[in-house]
């Protein structure tokens, strides 16, 4: 689950990391009043920044990040950004804060290193750009350090990272931030905590003397879905726009459903087999309408639920059911299909393939109910594509 920048910053702040002030606003009027407050405090550059809150990269290039020098200007800019479409996501809120006077930008993130089975810290003095770009163009500019798998990021590891990033002059802050990233990751079960840019900014002390400070200017956090159960409060941070309503309904029913653009509905047990089924549909010349994994051990009612989800998409004109029974029992799936068909309002051709556990019982049920069946996966895909073609696009 991805978090918005503002929520990610809240979690970092809660773990004691230095994050400049911000407010979240949903209307241009809110932005105006937030801008008034921040500008009244007299930020070093005399401006505020307004940033679109969308769960997708590249919002800067898309015009979703702008500066404003007055409340009036902030309101105008906010009215441009709010409602804007960025790569298919609508901007529903923005972050407002004092525009930082940046001395230098860095990159710092904590990610899961699958190969080493450790938390990996990646840092770079090339901040503010996508790390993938740095990785391609200047791989030597990326510093890597693993956290101890049992103890987290030890102070000496954080120091090594800070020195290697050229942050020796801000050692204490850099160590605290690096350790804080790992603490945040462990505390909230995040997959990714990314600060880009981590920046040295110029602030003015009470007396007016300018002082350099290392702060987290942007923040991206992705949470481990498997661990959300033990962080119930974090579920509230889920952006309803992040998943389609049917994806959400599926998740709550224990199914994994992702809506796609094609015409052939797919119902499969197991993620790898579901992807394979989609691949074979495409290979046979069709277009899958969805990814749907009913998981292991699904019972009849879950199967019926899955079928309703597929049929809710008006573009679907054929359905392919592919079940390789292991934990899942074929006869349960067959019963679910029969039950679902009894309830369904719209008649769509269906090709069913059930092998593995209780496949024989399933075959009897399917034959009695006159389902079209297939023996191999390739055969099933071909039949489903043929059915879809003969149906054409429904009105």
């Amino acid at each position, binding site marked *: 689950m991805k978090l918005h920048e503002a929520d990610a910053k809240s979690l970092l702040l809660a773990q004691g990391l230095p994050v400049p002030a911000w407010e979240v606003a949903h209307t241009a009027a809110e932005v105006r009043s937030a801008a008034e407050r921040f500008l009244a405090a007299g930020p070093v550059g005399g401006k505020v920044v307004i940033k679109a809150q969308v769960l997708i990269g590249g919002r800067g290039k898309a015009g979703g990040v702008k500066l404003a020098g007055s409340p009036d200007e902030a309101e105008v800019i906010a009215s441009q950004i709010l409602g804007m479409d960025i790569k298919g996501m609508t901007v529903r809120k923005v972050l407002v804060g004092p525009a930082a006077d940046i001395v230098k930008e860095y990159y710092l993130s904590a990610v*899961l290193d*699958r*190969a080493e*089975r*450790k*938390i990996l810290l990646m840092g770079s003095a090339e901040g503010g750009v*996508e790390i*993938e770009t740095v990785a391609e163009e200047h791989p030597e500019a990326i510093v890597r350090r693993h956290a101890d*798998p*049992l103890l987290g990021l030890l102070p000496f590891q954080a120091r090594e990272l800070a020195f290697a990033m050229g942050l020796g002059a801000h050692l204490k802050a850099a160590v605290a931030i690096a350790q804080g990233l790992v603490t945040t*990751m*462990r505390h909230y*079960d995040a*997959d990714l905590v990314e600060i880009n840019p981590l920046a040295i900014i110029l602030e003015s002390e009470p007396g007016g003397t300018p002082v350099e400070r290392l702060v987290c200017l942007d923040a991206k956090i992705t949470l*481990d*879905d*498997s*661990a959300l159960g*033990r962080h119930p409060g974090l579920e509230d941070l889920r952006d309803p726009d992040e998943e389609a309503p049917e994806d959400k309904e599926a998740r709550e029913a224990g199914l*994994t459903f*992702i809506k*796609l653009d094609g015409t052939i509905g797919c119902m*499969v*047990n*197991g*993620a*790898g*087999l*579901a*992807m*394979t089924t*989609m*691949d*074979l549909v*495409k*290979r046979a010349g069709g277009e*899958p309408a969805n*990814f749907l*994994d009913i998981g*292991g*051990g699904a019972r009849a009612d879950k199967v019926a639920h899955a079928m309703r989800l597929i049929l809710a998409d008006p573009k679907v004109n054929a359905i392919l059911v592919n079940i*390789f*029974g*292991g*934990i899942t029992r074929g006869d349960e799936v067959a019963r679910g299909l029969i039950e679902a068909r009894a309830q369904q309002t719209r008649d769509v051709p269906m090709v069913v393939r059930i*092998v*593995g*556990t209780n496949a024989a019982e399933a075959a009897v049920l399917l034959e009695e109910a006159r389902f079209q069946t297939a023996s*191999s*996966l*390739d055969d099933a895909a071909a039949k489903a594509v043929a059915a879809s073609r003969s149906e054409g696009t429904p009105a």
Partner: protein
Amino acid sequence: MSILVGRETRLVVQGITGREGGFHAAASRAYGTNLVAGVTPGKGGQTALDGAVPVFDTVTDAVRETGANTSLIFVPAAGAPDAVMEAADAGIATIFCITEGIPALDMIAAVEVVRAHGARLIGPNCPGATSPGRAKVGIIPGDIHREGRVGMVSRSGTLTYEAVQAMTDAGLGQSTCVGIGGDPIIGTTFLDVLQLFAADDETDAIVLIGEIGGASEEAAAAWAGEHLRDVPKVAFIAGRTAPEGKRMGHAGAIISGGAGTAASKVEALEAAGFRVAGSPTELPGLLRDAGYRG
């Protein structure tokens, strides 16, 4: 010899008194696996599978009383990492964790503890392993196998079965079929299993079933290109048509920024001498094309 499981396997099932644990313990035993014990804290002294298997409170007790050397874990996600560490601490050499939905960071610690004990973990979120005709540890349906000399490794569940079935249907038997699991943090990687197959004198060919996301297929391919030059080997990658940025069920199967795409995996595998199939059913034919005569 097969790898990971075989005639020397002395199996303890952690969580044997649960629904799934009991079901698959029975199936493993029915297949011929030497199931010596079960563990459920608080049920020590009872028996499972109609009196056939003694149940212990701790893995340490089970190891001491039965000489168990392999563990199969069906403990729910909240307790599974602890169960893994318990098995390693009790001296179990090979630990299969079937449990799915374990938070990734919990597994970092568990994997490290297993490594410190010199044990091997397969999974979590994996279907286990079968050495046809010898032993089956996990949830892979037993009847899809056939004895033979092809080593198969996959990080999917049902897709593994599909591929195994395709091999068996084509008359190509297997030395061992291993599902390593689809989670981000797993105990044993493709590379680890390839190394085991490379050292196994009963494995003459390799089938690798990967999917999009991560870079473990690429890592395995790089090693195979160097060390398994003359071994006939084929692969299949699921998710060629999956849209970018969407998570397809497995935590492992997410693509972002070009890394871990099907294209990158296919390229790496082909460069290493794998023939890559467009469908699981093509695997047997490609393996014969690669010179396998088993």
